[in-house]
């Protein structure tokens, strides 16, 4: 049984040697040493003839098994060497900069508009767009601001001719929306560009976006304006925000209020809120009976609330933007920061 033991020994040492093989050249050397025609396995097998006939058969079978096993091990090793080599070809310097994707984005104002519209949509408000060039009648007269009314000073106006102007606020949309919905109850959001004859500065633009909200129906109160606006402010600016109403004056609402929101400094007082802890965010109130009538509703039957706010000034603190002129300068260095 010496040959059988030798074969086993050969098999084991060959497999062990194969483990250590690391290159094509070493693998070839291994093959020549063990598997080649004059290799160790062949030499061991050549001794089969020396065995007695009754042992020869079993030993031959064992020798063939060893040969198959080594052959398979060899092929496996060859395959894994090939894979390793291929892997080395695919090696990438992963510290290189990533390939930049092609990206665009929505204008910051648009994002804020869409965000606001989404929040108000959850409270049942739908978008209603109206003209930018308006009549004096819609922009002022039907909103309870007759010609030569002192309140006209509140809106410095750009005129096209003696009847047409660039809307100074989205409020004329109130009349248009009411006339479209009357006598049904309505809840609409009127977003859009507005224009003022105003010297442009870091705090003031001659063109800006306003979002106007209008609800008309039964059970619409100043308290519900507070509820709707607080829900909006908390979703837009954070659940910790609070709002407060301050008495104010708009000819088309009565009572009229300014809506303040707690400042980002959360009442600690900062330069932005001038130490008051509050930022003015919107103006609104209960729709004036004359305006409800102009919209076709019976003010003794329904009530309405309305509010309007400038989008840019509302979101500037959130993003730390200190100059409103960035918005419509359309400089990519500004726009891309928010894309």
């Amino acid at each position: 049984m010496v040959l059988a033991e030798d074969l086993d020994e050969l098999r084991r040492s060959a497999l062990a040697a194969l483990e250590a093989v690391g290159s094509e050249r070493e693998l070839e050397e291994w093959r020549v040493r063990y598997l080649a025609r004059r290799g160790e396995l062949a030499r061991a097998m050549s001794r089969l003839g020396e065995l007695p006939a009754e042992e020869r058969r079993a030993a031959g079978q064992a020798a063939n098994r060893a040969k198959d096993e080594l052959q398979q091990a060899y092929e496996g090793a060859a395959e894994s060497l090939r894979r390793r080599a291929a892997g080395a070809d695919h090696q990438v310097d992963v510290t290189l900069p990533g390939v930049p994707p092609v990206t665009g984005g929505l204008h910051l104002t648009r994002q804020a508009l869409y965000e606001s519209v989404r929040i108000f949509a959850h409270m049942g408000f739908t978008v209603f767009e109206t003209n930018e060039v308006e009549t004096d009648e819609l922009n002022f007269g039907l909103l309870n601001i007759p010609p030569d009314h002192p309140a006209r000073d509140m809106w410095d106006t750009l005129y096209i001719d003696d009847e047409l102007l660039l809307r100074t606020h989205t409020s004329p949309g109130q009349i248009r929306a009411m006339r479209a919905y009357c006598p049904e109850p309505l809840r609409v959001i009127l977003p859009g560009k507005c224009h003022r004859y105003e010297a442009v500065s870091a705090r003031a633009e001659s063109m800006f976006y306003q979002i106007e909200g209008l609800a008309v129906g039964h059970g619409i109160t100043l308290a519900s304006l507070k509820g709707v606006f607080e829900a909006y402010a908390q979703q837009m600016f954070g659940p910790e925000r609070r709002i407060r109403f301050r008495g104010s004056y708009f000819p088309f609402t009565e009572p009229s209020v300014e809506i303040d929101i707690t400042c980002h400094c959360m009442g600690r007082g900062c330069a932005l809120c001038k130490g008051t802890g509050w930022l003015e965010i919107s103006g609104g109130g209960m729709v004036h009976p004359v305006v409800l009538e102009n919209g076709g509703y019976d003010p003794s039957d329904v009530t309405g609330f309305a509010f309007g706010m400038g989008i840019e000034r509302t979101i500037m603190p959130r993003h730390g933007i200190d100059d409103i002129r960035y918005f419509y300068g359309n400089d990519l260095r500004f726009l891309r920061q928010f894309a």
Partner: protein
Amino acid sequence: MRVPVSWLREYVEFEQPIEEVAHLLTIAGLEVKAIERTGGDWDRVFVGRVERVEPHPNADRLVLATVDYGRGELTVVTGAPNIAEGQKVALALEGAVLDDPYSETPRRRRLKAGKIRGVRSEGMVCSERELGLGGDHEGILVLDPRTPVGAPLAEVLGDVVLEFDLTPNFAYASSIVGIAREVAAITGGRLRLPEVPPLPMADPGVQVRVAPDAALSRYMLQRLDNITVAPAPAYVQERLRACGLRTINNVVDITNYVMLEYGQPLHPFDASRVEGDVVVRPAHPGERLETLDHQVREMPPGTVMIADEEKAIGIGGIMGGLDSEVSESTTSVLLESATFDAPRIRRSSREMGLRTDASARFERGTDPDLAAVALARAVGLLVHEVGARPVGGPSDWYPAPGLPEPVRLDASEIERQLGVKIPAGEAAKILASLGFGTSVEGSTIFAAPPSFRRDVTRPADLVEEVGRIWGYDNIPAELPKGELPAQTADEAALLERTAREWLAGAGLQEVINYDLTSLKVLDAFRGVLSSVEGPALWRPEDELLKVLNPLSTEHEYLRPALLPELLQNLAHNLRHDERVWLFELDRVFVSRGPRTLPDEPKRLGIVLTGPRRPRSPLVREEGTGVLDLKGIVEGLLRELNVSEYDLCPLEAPGDGALNALGLSIGGRCAGFLFELGERPLAAADVSARVAAAEIEWDAVLAHASLVRRFRPFSRFPAVRQDIAVLVPDSTPAESVRRVIEGSGGRYLRHLDLVEIYSGDPLPGGTKSLLYRLGFQADDRTLTEDEASRARRGVERALREQLGARIRGADDQ
């Protein structure tokens, strides 16, 4: 409006700290913009008495003043023309911090002792401006002679001033008395208005005639003799200054004092300059008057004039005439207190370009009953402080006296509007505190507005008064009750949003431009694609909507197209970016004639320039071209399910555009895709190649849909076959594609152009287009033979219809 708290406290008692009162007023609608403390930084300023004034040895215009300030005497050098021995003055010692009177912007400086023309000045006698009290720097501030020498100035002149920013509805509260009344209502403090002696009951000392078409509701005039014009009493001067008014003389200052106190403007005429009766009438056409400010003005039609028998003496409610001005020689005045028609004053004042303290008050509306109170108050002060003697009683034209009608308010209306229950009794109490006469019957409140609240005519007006005093802080936040309106999905808005988001995803940045632009910007597109049917990219000036009162020529015309401003955006960004891909989806403006609302159709504008991908060493650099634009537009149309469209090359577009395509949707040209030509590029000073598109959005919307329909696809594999088509360079790829589609048979399901090649070894002037065809059946796997048969049919058609050669097949 400025309200000195010391003055306010004379008329209302309150215990709350002034900060709290200011907050309560603000919440109630009377916004306190600032609480200002005057005198807070007058650390080293004292009341001094001028002991001696001696000439300066080296300067004619300067004097040496020796001032006693209680702790000793100082000598100061001053150029003040009004300094005199015996005056009480504000003496600043070395180290005092004062305003720089010569600086345009507010600036402070610390006072140092020093020599002026060789004489040492140890301090300074201050002007109003140096103390931050107002604009006057012509002379030094002269204090009340009773002021104690040596007192710190802060103790004498220092005060807290509330600076209000009042909305027009608070016209009735725009006075010390008006604010006092509000403070009393809000704080519950006691109101204590000044004692006003009655006007003399006698025949008028001057006759007044009012023309029937003069716009006013009351006119009062009182003659006063025995006037000696001199500086006003110190307390009057100090209060005027604290409120930001200039001091002039005792008569004018007292009328201004009463205006601040009550809100009723008054005007004194020098009686010696008035001939006969006073006439109130509309201005004659072209009538002129030289006003107090030495301007000769022409009166707009309808202006109310105050005149005598011969000439105008003042513009009613706006400004007096120069000739009848109260001067040092005046000994007798006619004192006017009137109620002019607010809209008329506003119109005249605007048309004249003259706004005064008086007109600003009249145009917001004044109370005719107040005219009498203010006149009586002013007469009382003139008698007491100036020694004036009334001549007869006042002339009083007041054809329609009367109080405003009472208004009925049910408590349920308060709840319907505010969403909180406020009992009728509580509401009535609030209204009473604001001066309303009230009574309550059950839940109904009857409120009679006081004469100064003629703005209150309906229940909603009362609800507002109750709400703001009750406190908006006390109103709860709740979501709306009642029925929810029918909800409609706004497909147009959704499609618009989908388009914007898709374009952003495709690598374009949205911009938002001004609607107003300049002719210069618009002119870059003059003539561009103007001869072709489609959206106008330019319109002549007379078709544009122009703003009458533009802020600047840069924002003067409403844009008729998007591309002009987009090109400006692109040019701007090319200064610091090389890849600029922008879009805008917004309105343009198309005039429909004067006094007619214009059309405001939306458009989609795109400009592209620079590398196709952001720069990277790993990406081959390729410039953006019109085909990128085409891909984007087609991708967008696919996203929006617009299938009925066509993109066709446009002929001879001129020097404004090249490589142009027209986009037809539903059979009408609704847009252009092109490369900007020489002219627009030169106008915008851009040297890069720019692809641009402008598309009528309504045409897209009309054929767009958010709903996609499923299209079945075959479950069996496709057989791919390639055809390399050799055609002349001039053959459009579209023609090749059409032939292949037309001849491929029913199994041709996929057709992709995978390679374009020209050059060696192809003959010059030809190109090879490699198409990959996919043949596929719905019910079985096609054999290679079937596919090859179909392919050969295609090859035949290409040879026959286009004279093409099929590479590989026809090469041998």
